[in-house]
């Protein structure tokens, strides 16, 4: 968003506090701004493990997404969502509000639903990240995906992957939710086309289908 650009110059140079040299001391990271991978992967792992400082330039980041490890070079300011969308071509999660409000970017990290627009990619390392692309085996769609179709819980579909992930997070935690629990479980997601009626039905239908599958 545009701010008062006349004020920006004052903010730009560091005023006391750290010297720029201080930034890079002890880590061996240079300030290469764009796409210049600096550290070897092992070095980076070691540095991060030791709690040392990395960046602000691009650094190696290792993400475990849908069971597969991806190694990329991104700046620490890159979010998990943008790392997926812009660097890994994993685009099911959408960037809509980009401020942790609308839920279109919902992913599951270590079993918990999160807003991936509001997590730094560097901070997502070491976690098991699940995206819409990874919730079902290739051959058969996840029962939630099917239920969203059966119940027409989507129109333009841009919010849909986020809703499916939020619903999955809910059902993972509570396989037999009541109607009210479904509504509450979707409290972090927004749709503009107005598909909530179908979405609510879909989650209940999927819960039933998944339990049936388990019992079978």
């Amino acid at each position, binding site marked *: 968003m545009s701010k008062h650009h006349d004020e920006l110059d004052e903010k730009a140079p560091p005023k006391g506090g750290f010297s720029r040299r201080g930034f890079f001391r002890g880590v061996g990271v240079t300030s290469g701004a764009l796409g210049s991978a600096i550290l070897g992967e092992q070095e980076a792992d070691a540095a991060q493990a030791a709690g040392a400082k990395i*960046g602000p330039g691009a650094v190696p980041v290792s993400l475990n997404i849908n069971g597969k490890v991806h190694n990329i070079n991104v700046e620490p300011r890159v979010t998990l969502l943008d790392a997926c969308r812009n660097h890994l071509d994993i685009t099911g999660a959408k960037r809509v509000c980009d401020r942790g409000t609308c839920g279109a970017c919902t992913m599951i990290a270590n079993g918990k639903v999160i807003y991936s627009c509001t997590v730094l990619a560097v901070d997502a390392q070491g976690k098991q990240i699940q995206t819409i692309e990874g919730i079902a085996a290739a051959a058969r769609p996840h029962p939630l995906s099917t239920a969203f179709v059966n119940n027409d819980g989507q129109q333009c579909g841009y919010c849909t992957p986020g809703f499916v992930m939020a619903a999955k*997070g809910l059902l993972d935690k509570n396989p037999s939710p009541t109607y009210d629990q479904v509504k509450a479980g979707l409290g972090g997601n927004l749709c503009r086309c107005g598909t909530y009626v179908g979405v609510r039905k879909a989650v209940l239908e999927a819960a039933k289908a998944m339990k049936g599958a388990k019992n079978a």
Partner: protein
Amino acid sequence: MQAFEYANPTSLKEALGMLSSQWGEADILAGGTDLLSLMKEYIHTPKRVINIKGIKELGGITKTAAGLRIGATATLDELTESAAVRTEYPSLHQAAMGVSSPQIRNMGTVGGDLCQRPRCWYFRQGYGILGQEKGKSLVPDGENRYHAIFPKSQAYFVNASSLAPALIALGAKVKIAGPNGNRELRVEELFVVPSSNAARELALAPNEILTEIVVPSARGVKNATYEVRQKEALDWPLVTASVAIRMKGSSVASAKVVLGHVGPTPVVATAAEQMLTGKSLTQDVATEAGKSALDGAQPLNGNAYKVQLARVAVKRALLEAAKARG
């Protein structure tokens, strides 16, 4: 977002060593639900971001005989899932559930809830914590429907914490670590009124870290939180009231009544607390307490309705608490 150096310390000592003695240089990252938005808006442009989630001692929730210890990086989800919180501190459970997005509850931390910055839209548009242009606050003559009805000097924003009113009512303290050792504050002392756009609204130094929250035992204390929100889906409360009542027989021995989202700090409603003492928690008494709690409110031209909402919130919190065992 401005580029920054990222640090992932594993010990508190290490983290403290990475902080700066000046605001704006370094930011502490926990859940990130507020910080990342602030950075995307260039409201915060830290040179260094210090992730404290890797510091084990800052996490976890433990129940002891003395009460409850909540690590600063314990998530709101951990708080709502805690059986101890559900049974002994319903007000805290209700307050956390008021954050009605599961994603935010999974990410957001208790420490972060207390340390988050106000949602005042003038602040978020870059007019500083006091929302000023040319030295004058934009709030009184502007769009102030969500602003303070208990403004303090030039501060019209409202404290955004969901948990603070409950924690204050329950008599909780925060532990703070700094370069010169540790200190403790009562939760209400954590919040201060900034005197200028350059000042902060927390009684923390830039090189301190809030490490844990300690809530005394609430056995025998009836407590409840009531939020007025327009939406059931994720939405900021318009007002919150949290109460903690010690009974003696059928009458109130002592009461704590705290309002949220009504002023730059949570507001302890002393008059209502005094008025309640010795009374039984009837509908009429609760209504009366609501009125007392709002004595001295100074609404702006667009937010007088919040006075009414806060009265109702106090009344409903009291009646909810009355139903609770304790």
